């Protein structure tokens, strides 16, 4: 076990735990943001640099501070380590820098992006970004690609987190998609636009932190905050069958994995569940899904409304407006 202190809060964690995992164990507002790290994908993290923190004391044994800011997702804790996240102006400034870098070539087309509302880059920009851009050159652009009938690749929005490639490598058995070219000309693509032909390929949509990989069948159907996430399950031979349905009225617009509070899939789901079971009768509904408190969809208060509906049979006007 190792004791680590992050912004004054201490916790004992098993050896080998990363600073980011320790921060998530502590919880609260003090967890570094992560755009590329994904706990369920091996070797993920380290690329985006948003989770950088300052190690002001290395360990009890060697109390020297680390010379540079470190990615908390790829740095393991040492006993007695002291870390500064939000309490370090240096960290906050560097993080603002990273956010700016991530945004300079992002199209900022949130008004027409299906990911808007559940986009991690949106959240990150809101929390750590500047109101004005200093970048006044043309932004990088790519043609949109359909990866088979279900997945849309909108490379212009990609922030190169590598998560989808790791999904392709680690949970599907014949990777046909990867990182091409280099530097700021890098792009995610499939080999000569081949279809990703695998039962679990749809999970690339769930791991994508932005709107680069989206569900083609849900395209422009609804803003995410107008849909109701419901936990549901079915008997599935390929996966656990535990999913979140995104409903509008009686219609199932989209099926995704269930995401935890860090936005990560709890379990991978198969393409049959995701793309082919779009009827409400395909599913056993468990109830409303608790969603990420950061996301705009949680502001919709539909749960309260639903509860009121159930209690009084009639929603109250002020609840609908989101007032307390």
């Amino acid at each position, binding site marked *: 076990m190792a004791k680590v202190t992050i912004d004054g809060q201490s916790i004992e964690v098993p050896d080998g735990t990363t600073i980011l995992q320790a921060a998530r164990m502590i919880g609260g507002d003090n967890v570094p943001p992560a755009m590329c790290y994904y706990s369920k994908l091996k070797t993920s993290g380290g690329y985006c640099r948003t989770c950088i923190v300052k190690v002001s004391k290395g360990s009890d044994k060697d109390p020297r501070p680390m010379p540079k800011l470190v990615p908390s997702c790829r740095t393991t804790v040492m006993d007695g380590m002291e870390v500064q996240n939000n309490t370090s102006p240096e960290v906050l400034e560097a993080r603002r820098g990273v956010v700016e870098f991530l945004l300079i070539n992002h199209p900022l087309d949130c008004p027409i992006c299906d990911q808007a509302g559940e986009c991690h880059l949106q959240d990150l920009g809101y929390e750590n970004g500047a109101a004005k851009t200093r970048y006044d050159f043309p932004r990088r652009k790519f043609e949109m690609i359909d990866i088979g009938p279900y997945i849309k690749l909108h490379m212009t929005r990609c922030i190169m987190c590598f998560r989808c490639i790791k999904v392709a490598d680690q949970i599907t058995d*014949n*990777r*046909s*998609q*990867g*990182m*091409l*070219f*280099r530097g700021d*000309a890098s792009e995610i693509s*499939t*080999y*000569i636009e081949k279809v990703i032909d695998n039962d679990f390929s749809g999970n690339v949509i769930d791991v994508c932190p932005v709107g680069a990989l989206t569900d083609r069948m849900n395209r422009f159907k609804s803003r995410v905050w107008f849909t109701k996430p419901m936990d549901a399950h079915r008997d599935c031979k390929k996966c656990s069958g535990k999913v979140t349905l995104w409903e509008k009225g009686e219609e199932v617009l989209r099926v995704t994995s269930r995401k935890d509070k860090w936005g990560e899939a709890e379990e991978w789901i198969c393409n049959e569940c995701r793309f082919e079971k779009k009827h409400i009768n395909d599913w056993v509904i468990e109830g409303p899904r608790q969603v990420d408190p950061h996301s705009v969809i949680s502001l919709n208060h539909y749960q309260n409304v639903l509860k009121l509906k159930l209690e009084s049979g009639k929603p109250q006007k002020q609840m609908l407006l989101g007032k307390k």
Partner: protein
Amino acid sequence: MSNQVSGAQAFDKTQRAKIVFSDEALKTVQKIITRYPEGKHKSALLPVLHIAQAEFGGWLSPETMDYVASVLKIKPIEVFEVASFYSMYNLKPVGKCNLEVCRTSSCWSRGSEDIVKYLEKKLGVKVGETTSDGMFTIKTVECLGSCGGAPMLQCGSSFHENLTLEKVDTIVENYRMEGKQKSYTDLDYKNTL
């Protein structure tokens, strides 16, 4: 990374169907694979791509990359990822003589821009383009480790250093007379690797 070409060098379709290493090249490939431990044959990818480029028209077509993947028993995407990362692999056809002029600091300070302008005027094409006879492609490249001989250009495996406009004339004429493949692909792997 973009190797734009003005049409002339489109790879012949009949050749395209014949993407199979010569016996000699295949022998070299097998020899290269033995340099690495058991199961680490993917290490051979960079040298084998050089050979493939030399064997199949001076560039790596999708078909060539597919073929290399099958020879090394790796996924096509693994080949594509690598081929698109390194600047020496041409993903589009290039001229027989790929004149690559260094433009980084030392070469720039000793007049590489004048060399490029002169070449453009002399050959009638711009940087990145190929002459209509398919003979010359002009490229600008980043530091080739020949700063002491600045300004310099590379063609095939030859370094041409301490360039002057007169020297450029001679180089171009010599290549024109030789008239043979002098792109990166003419590296004569078979004798050496």
